[in-house]
């Protein structure tokens, strides 16, 4: 039996609970049914694990991909008086197509295409990789534009000065431009991280049981939506608050050198 009725539950509880008002008893019963009965909290934990793995993986992939695309795009655009080299123009064109296609199609559609047309994953690990790759590619497009705005916010005089002091292009980027740009893009990057975390709830279309799917599974066993969905919202909120707090720590740390 997947189900414990209110009456069955009342028989097994200590006496002090019977003295509580009805609504509180009902709430405790739903809580019991959602988390404790048949160790359902394990479902939430398993789902949370999937959500966390996919979020962290996609985040890392998105940042790396986004940064590469942003550097290609800004260095191409930095050629004003003369044409950029041929190779750079090719890469720039590829990046532009990538940005157009990924930002122009919904996340859900990208997951369906990757899951059922391109990658066609079979095992659990393959599905997780598929989810990370899809979300990472998606996130990369948004991070690219965020990073580009950061790179362009650094005055051209700075890289000119660095170059005239003999630093190579990559050293100029690594030691002069990127450290300053990161400070500027952190708030917008935080936005993107939060969006990415919440987008992971879509991965259930490729048959991955993330925390949202597990909450739905519990509702489809108990037919009580209140506690599972409110708890689900609280879980996401808690993770977002944690992320925001970590980002604010990082921002504060990076600002130390400003004074």
């Amino acid at each position, binding site marked *: 039996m997947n189900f414990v009725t209110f009456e069955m539950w009342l028989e097994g509880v200590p006496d002090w609970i019977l003295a509580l008002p009805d609504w509180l008893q009902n709430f405790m019963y739903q809580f019991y049914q959602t988390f404790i009965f048949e160790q359902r909290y394990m479902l939430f934990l398993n789902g949370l694990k999937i959500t966390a793995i996919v979020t962290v993986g996609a985040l890392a992939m998105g940042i790396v991909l986004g940064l590469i695309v942003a550097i290609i795009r800004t260095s191409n655009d930095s050629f004003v008086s003369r044409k950029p080299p041929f190779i750079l123009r090719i890469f720039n064109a590829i990046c532009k197509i990538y940005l157009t296609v990924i930002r122009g199609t919904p996340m859900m559609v990208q997951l369906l295409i990757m899951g059922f047309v391109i990658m066609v994953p079979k095992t659990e690990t393959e599905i997780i990789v598929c989810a990370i790759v899809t979300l990472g590619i998606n996130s990369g497009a948004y991070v690219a534009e965020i990073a580009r705005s950061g790179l362009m916010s650094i005055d051209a005089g700075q890289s000119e000065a660095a170059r005239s002091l003999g630093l190579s292009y990559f050293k100029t980027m690594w030691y002069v431009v990127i450290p300053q740009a990161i400070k500027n893009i952190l708030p917008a990057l935080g936005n993107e991280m939060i969006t990415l975390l919440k987008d992971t709830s879509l991965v259930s279309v490729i048959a991955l049981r993330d925390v949202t799917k597990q909450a*739905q599974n519990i509702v489809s066993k108990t037919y009580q939506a209140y506690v599972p969905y409110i708890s689900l919202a609280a879980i996401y909120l808690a993770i977002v608050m944690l992320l925001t707090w970590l980002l604010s720590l990082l921002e504060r740390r990076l600002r130390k050198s400003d004074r």
Partner: protein
Amino acid sequence: MKAFVKVLALALCVALIGGVFAGCTNTTTAPSTTDDATATTAAPVAGEELVMGTNAAFPPYEFTDDQGNVVGIDAEIAQAIADKLGMTLVIKDMEFDSLLTAVAGGSIDIVLAGLTVTEERKQSVNFTDTYAKGVQVIIVKEGSAIKSVDDLEGKTIGVQAGTTGDIYCTDDFGQENVKQFANGTLAVAALVNDQVDCVVIDNEPAKNFVAANAGLAILETAYTEEDYAAAIAKENTELLDKVNAAMAELKADGTIDAIIGKYITAE
């Protein structure tokens, strides 16, 4: 000026929230099921709406026609019941695993979705009399190693989330072996791609899926047999009685058999 801006902002917020709620009640109206064209154009019968929830990816019980209307056995039976009761039928197409929560919560009046009667579900909703029999079958690729239910152990099983096939398979083989899809069509697409080893789903949709995809076969041995019925919220006993009465009449005069016979040809 400032006060004006504040009032304007407030008005905009109210309009926005109102719009959101208005969007929630957006529904698709059911197609007329009779061949008589006047039935569609006739003004809605004086009376309330009967809001039916279903998941329209379950042929022949419910699916969408070329115009995007929800049609099928359940849609026609619901239409016949609504006609008997003098109500206007409105069909909402939603995810299968949220149907029972929606009917228990009152956002829809009745569920007709090839829904199996189970003891667990009876705890949260009332079922009408059954109107059809369903069988959970196993779809495999031709030449698959799976020959019967006994071979399912350790295989990856595709199911539609929240269906009895999902519930039974998860109980029997564990979550790690069962992959949930939003509807049967996606589960079958995964089977065609070799992403799952088999799909457990109701017999009639299974026949449709197998007919539409070359190289698939339904196993002779069924997974389970079960009864289909409509679900109505526990509190709404008035509607339950009315629907049961209407259904009894429709069964007696052969309407339900005729509707089912229209979609399912006897072998």
